[in-house]
């Protein structure tokens, strides 16, 4: 199969408009006959499910949580970008497009990225209409703040809970359509496999997490909106239940996986404090607007932060990147922190953190202003650490965060399996090798609200003529049997190690070798280690309880089984890419002063992986830059 | 019938009873005057109350309020019990709310017992003529002062009348502010003031009603 990105012809500015003008339409009476499954209820999933239902399709939506309102979009704190230019600071769709493309180190499609910027302004209109209480100025207009990696103020926010407010708006809209009986919601249901019939996605197999019942769902199209897979590192900023199972199963059924190793390590999370830790809490990047990051100039300095005088502090981001300073993009800020920590300048109990200091901001702006902007973040920090950050600096540390990589999709957000779509974080579309802050809520919302509902008709129009296979089709029976047999197998092992134990082991390998900096030797070793973990897992894991009941241990084990396989692909991908770009930093490819060295000559493509019976076959989608010439990404 | 309606009845009747208590206490304060002045004023006041048409209407409203307050308290409590699932084995309610707010029903029952006894002692004798006949004073009014005076020279009644003002105080402290909120008073600073007023009101009512029998006893 060849990779057809289906980018419309024409000028960059006109591509989306002309695409819409030419795409097939389906009349309302026919839409009622079409059934779409949406897997996931975050901003992408809920937005898509609600909008598709408004258009007249029959929608069934799934989430593993007890309510769609819990999806992890809820945890995004800082904000959402839009090229509104309300601040009159020279912003425009073009500049936002350029910032995003450059922020992603020129590893995404121009057309996709442009569309992201183009649709950002209407998205803010949409959310305001839906009642999102965005921050306002006294005059009643919307307020903005700046975010890492850009020099304009284009970020809209609702205190430090922007993701929550947007998700609740999407959840509300979804609830409206549930009440209208246009969406059937299946909460506490986890999709465990995709049913592909004659090359087209025609349904899913899901497990009812409350009862353990395995159910079949048939449809005319399947939309995956399952979010990121950074739980592969075990310790991440993600929710404990976030997983890669649905996309991994889709991959094994033929959907290509793009740039799996592109993982964003967020610079401002709370540091790990113990072995048994289950997650790393994120502190919004917006804190970097007013906080200054530093470490002591002296190694192993055991003094309290407040006892270290100014001249003995190393504000290393301001030193290394004078023009962006503390607002350097995430990959750069994370790597710079790692560099200082590895060099022995880390602070905190485990010497694994750096300071984020608000002293100067509080002196300059007053405590009230800081409290108004970040109050909930400061109180969250205090709840978790017991430390008052108005009095002493926060301790922060890099943590696995966002998956830029994901299922390969074309301009229509369709994967390489016809009828299977991937939207939001689980696809690889707009962010390239690094995502800019506040672009995540944007991309996931736009995929769900604006793009998918305008592209899916192009495919479904063709499906009208065909009869939808029902759930008794032999392929449904076969896939269900496979799901059941995997569950049976895991329960039967009855070994002597817990799932979490394996997960910790996997996480350590991945964090060591496939996170902020990577090298050939390490990756090769990691692949072998992960294969050993995989073998051991299938021999030694112990899962108690049964399949026909609520069984959280079984859920974990099933997810981990997929994470282990995904981890191998991530390392394979990182190993193949002999360059440093964005979040992918290969130690062999760096400049003398430690900056990333991109290689456009050989690697100006998206790595697209095909599953091939346990092995992976590489396809390359070469990126054409017609409008912007890739430059060295400098934030100095 | 909506839960709002039920709670509103409870709140509105409660507030009406609060106003009544204010009037009742000011009249009772007459008992604290020297006997010669007190007897005349008190008996005169009590006769006026019995004979005024306006007061008659208000009195009926009062009976109705009391009955509705009790009945709706019963209904609301019953309904709320239905909503509650199995009880917690460990429940530290007082860490999150006042004891009174958690026990309005119990407090209300105690107050109801008080009211019944109180009505038998006074209302039944004076108004309905049940029990020992009430004499008239020099002015020809029923000598309610004498009834009170005699009653409050019985130490058991003094204790009963005074001690049961404690639950009344608790009930009023929570009830007054709760009633305002139920009826939609939500001004943030106003609520803080309301909390203080409720406390002051509850103290004045409970202490005021409680000390009168004691003072009369020692008179």
């Amino acid at each position, binding site marked *: 199969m060849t990779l057809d990105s289906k980018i419309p012809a024409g000028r960059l500015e006109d591509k989306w408009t002309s695409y819409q003008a030419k795409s097939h339409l389906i009349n309302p009476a026919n839409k009622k006959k079409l059934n779409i499954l949406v897997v996931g209820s975050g901003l992408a999933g809920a937005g898509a499910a609600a909008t598709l239902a408004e258009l007249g399709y029959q929608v069934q939506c799934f989430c593993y949580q007890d309510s769609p309102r819990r999806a992890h979009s809820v945890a995004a704190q800082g904000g959402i970008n839009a090229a509104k230019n309300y601040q009159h600071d020279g912003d425009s769709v073009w500049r936002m497009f350029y910032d995003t493309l450059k922020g992603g180190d020129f590893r995404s499609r121009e057309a996709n990225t442009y569309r992201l910027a183009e649709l950002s302004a209407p998205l803010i209109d949409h959310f305001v209409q839906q009642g999102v209480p965005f921050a306002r100025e006294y005059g009643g207009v919307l307020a903005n703040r700046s975010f890492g990696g850009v020099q304009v103020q284009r970020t809209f926010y609702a205190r430090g809970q922007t993701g929550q407010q947007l998700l609740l708006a999407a959840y509300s809209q979804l609830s409206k359509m549930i009440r209208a009986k246009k969406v059937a919601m299946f909460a506490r249901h986890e999709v465990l496999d995709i049913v592909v019939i004659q090359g087209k996605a025609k349904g899913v197999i899901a497990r009812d997490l409350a009862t353990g019942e395995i159910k079949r769902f048939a449809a005319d199209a399947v939309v995956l909106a399952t979010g990121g897979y950074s739980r592969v590192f075990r310790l991440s900023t993600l929710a404990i239940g976030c997983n890669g199972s649905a996309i991994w199963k889709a991959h094994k059924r033929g959907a290509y996986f793009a740039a799996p190793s592109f993982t964003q390590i967020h610079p401002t999370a709370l540091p790990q*404090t113990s072995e048994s830790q289950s997650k790393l809490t994120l502190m919004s990047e917006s804190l970097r607007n007013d906080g200054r990051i530093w470490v002591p100039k002296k190694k192993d300095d055991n003094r309290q932060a407040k006892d270290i005088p100014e001249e003995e502090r190393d504000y290393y981001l301001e030193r290394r990147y004078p023009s962006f300073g503390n607002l350097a993009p995430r990959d750069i800020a994370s790597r710079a922190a790692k560099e200082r920590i590895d060099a022995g300048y880390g602070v905190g109990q485990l010497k694994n953190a750096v300071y984020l200091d608000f002293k100067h901001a509080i002196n300059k702006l007053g405590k009230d202003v800081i409290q108004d902007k970040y109050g909930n973040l400061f109180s969250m920090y205090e709840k978790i650490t017991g430390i008052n950050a108005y009095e002493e600096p926060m301790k922060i540390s890099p943590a696995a965060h966002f998956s830029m990589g994901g299922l390969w999709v074309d301009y229509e957000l369709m994967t390489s399996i016809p009828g299977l779509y991937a939207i939001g974080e689980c696809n690889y579309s707009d962010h390239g090798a690094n995502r800019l802050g506040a672009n995540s809520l944007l991309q996931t919302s736009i995929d769900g609200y604006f793009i998918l509902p305008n592209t899916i008709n192009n495919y479904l129009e063709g499906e009208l003529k065909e009869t939808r296979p029902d759930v008794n089709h032999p392929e449904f029976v076969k896939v269900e049997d496979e799901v059941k047999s995997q569950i049976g197998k895991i329960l039967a092992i009855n070994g002597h190690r817990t799932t979490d134990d394996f997960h910790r082991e996997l996480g350590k390998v991945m964090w060591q070798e496939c996170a902020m900096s990577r090298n050939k030797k390490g990756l090769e070793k990691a692949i072998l280690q992960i294969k050993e973990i995989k073998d051991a897992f299938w021999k030694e894991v112990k899962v108690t309880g049964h399949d026909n009941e609520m069984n959280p241990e079984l859920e974990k084990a099933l997810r981990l089984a997929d994470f282990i396989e995904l981890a191998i692909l991530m390392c394979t991908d990182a190993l193949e890419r002999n360059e440093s770009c964005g979040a992918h930093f290969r130690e062999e490819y760096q400049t003398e002063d430690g900056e990333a060295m991109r290689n456009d000559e050989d690697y100006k493509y998206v790595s697209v992986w095909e599953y091939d019976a346990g092995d992976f076959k590489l396809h390359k989608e070469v990126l054409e830059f017609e409008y912007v010439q890739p430059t060295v990404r400098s934030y100095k | 019938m909506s839960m709002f309606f039920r709670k509103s009845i409870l709140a509105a009747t409660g507030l009406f009873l609060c106003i009544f208590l204010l009037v009742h206490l000011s009249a009772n304060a007459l008992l604290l005057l020297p006997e010669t002045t007190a007897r005349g004023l008190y008996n005169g006041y009590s006769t006026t109350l019995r004979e005024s048409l306006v007061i008659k209407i208000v009195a009926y409203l009062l009976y109705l309020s009391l009955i509705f307050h009790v009945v709706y308290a019963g209904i609301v409590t019953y309904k709320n019990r239905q909503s509650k699932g199995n009880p917690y084995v460990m429940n530290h309610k007082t860490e999150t*709310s006042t004891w009174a707010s958690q026990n*309005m029903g119990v407090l209300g029952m105690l107050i109801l017992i008080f009211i019944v006894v109180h009505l038998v002692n006074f209302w039944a004798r004076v108004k309905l003529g049940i029990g020992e006949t009430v004499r008239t004073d020099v002015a020809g009014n029923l000598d309610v002062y004498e009834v009170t005076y005699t009653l409050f020279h019985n130490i058991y009644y003094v204790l009963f009348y005074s001690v049961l003002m404690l639950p009344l105080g608790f009930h009023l402290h929570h009830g007054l502010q709760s009633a305002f909120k139920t009826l939609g008073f*939500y001004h943030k600073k106003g609520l803080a003031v309301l909390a203080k007023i409720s406390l002051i009101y509850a103290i004045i009512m409970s202490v005021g009603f409680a000390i009168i029998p004691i003072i009369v006893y020692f008179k």
Partner: protein
Amino acid sequence: MKITFKIWRQEGANSEGSFKTYDIDGLTEDMSFLEALDHLNERLVLKGEKVVAFDHDCREGICGQCGVFINGRAHGPHDHMTTCQLHMRSFKDGETIVVEPYRAGAFPVVKDLVVDRTAFDRIIEQGAYITAKTGTAAEANAILIPKEVADNSMDVAACIGCGACVATCKNASAALFTSAKINHLNKLPQGQPEAHRRLVGMTDQMAIENFGSCTFTAACEVECPAEISISSIAEMNARYVKAKLFG
């Protein structure tokens, strides 16, 4: 540190439940409460026993999925905190911790510490939205909203839907949850066209779901992780009274 957990175990919605006691060692003060339960569950697995089922997801206090009754308090001993934000440093070495599921008629137990809070979803379905389709919005700054109004709206919009308000309420009232959502939208100009419909629809559903009525004990505002004040309930009542009296 060493802790004795006394945990409610219940096989399913229709089974009888009971407390089981677990002595557990090797905990540290830095562990979150849920990590201590993870730790316990790993020990249970190794012993061949079924794990304790409990709800949780984001573990950073925003998704609202976690929530159990710990030592007689919803979300544990601290005010305004979710279960996932509770850390073991809040307990003493050797302490016994009693863990129960949220108890309310409208929140039936699913298993062990997991309860069914879908009643909340059904309240939301009765009007906690703006009926406007995707793609029909006007320019965002065409609606001017004073900062105070947006801030007040945000104060209540912050509700995470954890259900602690119901769990701690002696009447199992959902008034704080419901009022928060009603006030969030009814304060904003966007929410005006269907303000009445929303108010009536959601409050009616609250009764249908068998939540009790609010008697202002204020326990809910103490437990609420989003620090929503009970003045929100009074405000909802004001809207209701106004709607009934003046239409």
